[in-house]
């Protein structure tokens, strides 16, 4: 059987757990509500070209800093841009950054965690020391330093965020591998002369998948909040990209003018998206480790 096949089989075995969400009380509902939140925002973002009333980056489509009216339901900003259109489009950046940074984290944290921990000894010690040092650092500050050097752009921003969160993946993978490594069936496989690669991918990896899934879901929320933070300190994308973080950042200067709508709507959207992912992650980790259910 192929390696991907066995990982896939574990996922299929886990699937019924997710399907019976309603029967799982609070944790199940948490996942459902979170998924609905995230799915709605994703749908709105995909449909943006058709449902957005105006061009989100065109200036002077309406009056400057108009409060919400029937024509501009969420008001306009200091450039006369329609806030509703910017809200509809603005999720693109956040979702892109979140997906890319989680992918980078997985691509780096998972193999290092698996291989170094399974090998043990020096590779394990060295990688743990490096990961712990990064983990101890104030995340946003480290991301700021990297983003400042890499320059603007969706990919650069995602990489800066990913570096900060790789240790979370590494740590969870490491702790799982340490446990699984000692289980009788893995020892049996080793005693029967199974190759390390086979043992690692067929017996160890599938056990790591569930916890990785819940870490990754919560990490989507972290990535979104960090991206908003980076934008807020002036390391965001260019003005030509509709972005909730950008609206929130520039809206700060408009507060004394009483323009609450410029920050409130993008802020709420960021909270809803981050909340959606957090709820899914929380619910999943409760479902997968029932002893935490309290």
């Amino acid at each position, binding site marked *: 059987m192929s390696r991907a096949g066995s990982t896939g089989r574990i996922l299929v075995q886990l699937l019924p757990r997710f399907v019976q969400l309603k029967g799982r009380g609070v944790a199940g509902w948490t996942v459902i509500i979170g998924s609905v939140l995230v799915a709605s925002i994703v749908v709105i973002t995909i449909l943006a070209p058709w449902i957005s009333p105006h061009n989100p980056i065109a200036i002077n489509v309406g009056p400057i800093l108009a409060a919400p009216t029937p024509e501009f339901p969420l008001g306009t900003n200091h450039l006369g841009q329609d806030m509703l259109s910017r809200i509809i489009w603005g999720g693109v950046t956040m979702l892109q950054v979140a997906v890319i940074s989680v992918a980078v984290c997985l691509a780096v944290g998972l193999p290092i965690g698996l291989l170094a921990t399974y090998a043990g000894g020096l590779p394990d010690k060295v990688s743990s020391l490096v990961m712990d040092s990064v983990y101890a650092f104030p995340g946003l*500050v480290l991301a700021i330093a990297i983003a400042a050097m890499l320059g603007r752009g969706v990919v650069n921003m995602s990489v800066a965020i990913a570096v900060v969160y790789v240790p979370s993946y590494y740590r969870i993978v490491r702790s799982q591998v340490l446990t699984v490594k000692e289980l009788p069936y893995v020892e049996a496989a080793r005693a029967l002369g199974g190759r390390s690669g086979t043992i690692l991918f067929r017996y160890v990896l599938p056990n790591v998948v569930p916890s990785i899934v819940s870490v990754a879901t919560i990490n989507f929320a972290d990535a979104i909040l960090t991206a908003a933070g980076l934008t807020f300190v002036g390391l965001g994308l260019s003005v030509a990209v509709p972005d909730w973080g950008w609206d*929130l950042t520039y809206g700060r200067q408009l*507060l004394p003018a*009483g323009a609450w709508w410029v920050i409130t709507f993008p802020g709420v959207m960021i909270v809803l998206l981050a909340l959606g992912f957090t709820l899914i992650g929380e619910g999943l980790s409760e479902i997968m480790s029932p002893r935490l259910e309290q």
Partner: protein
Amino acid sequence: MSLRSYIIARLLLTIPMILLLLTLVFLIIRVLPGDPALLHFEKQVKPEALEAFRRNLGLDKPVPQQYFDYLMGLFRGDLGKSMQDFSPVGGQIFSAFPATLELAIYAMIGAVLIGVFLGVRASQSYNTTEDHSIRTFGIVSYAIPVFFLGMVFQIIFSIQLHWFPSGGRIYPGMEPLGLSVGGVHLVTGLYTVDSLLEGNITKFIQAVRYLVLPSLALGVVLSGVFLRLTRSNMLETSRLDFVTAAKARGLKQSTVLYAYALRNAFLPILTMMGLQFAALLAGAVLTETTFSWPGLGRYLVDRISFRDYTAIQGAVVFFGLLVALVSLIVDILYAYLDPRIRL
């Protein structure tokens, strides 16, 4: 292991970690694609001017030499020269630090108070609407960017209600002087402390008024972890014999809760305070920017807009060292309070 040998072992463990952290920051600023000197100027600059600029900052030397100078400098407390005005970055950072420290202290107090209070309430009303609403608050507080919450506070409490100032640290010219006794001058840089040392209640009240919104915003965002921790600890502890015994002796409900059950949660809360310190500093960077609070975070953000890479490096290093120091102190404190750790 005795407490002393534990402290020595823990100190020895900190050294490679700090060295690694310093190397990481150096690699980010000097080795990652993008030459800091070129990036600083943004536009076209005469080669001679660029050369002189590099020489002045020591950026013309080979990278290993730069690395060595950087480490040696740090050893002497020298964080390098600013790209903006060539003044020592260290001095600027030390003068901005007390503002951050003051914000951090009050935000942490706020986070612990809110978290512990709500956590105890939730555990008392386990699985009721109150419990669920408090848990929801805990999750939502995690998903709110601190600068958004800060701005919402500004709209409500300063622009609409005029209760608190929307930004800054105190009226210009009102900075507290501290204590002067017989030629000895004592200033902490913490305005709430200095105003009391000076004996000036007006200044103290003003300092507190400026502190309320930023520390509350940061405190609320960080309170979720403490809430969750307190709740689960209290749920576990309330089943233990000594709590039942205390109840059986007819002690008041609040005494049992706060003096008996909560005491058991003290150590985990202390550890969590140490673990949250990094998050606290990261949050402070954003909170300071929101409230024009003149601390380290604001300094870092200002330097980013000037593309002052040596100052960015200095500030990042300082943040890292601070976190390493705090986690060292918390670990030692923990070992002192809980002898099992030393086993």
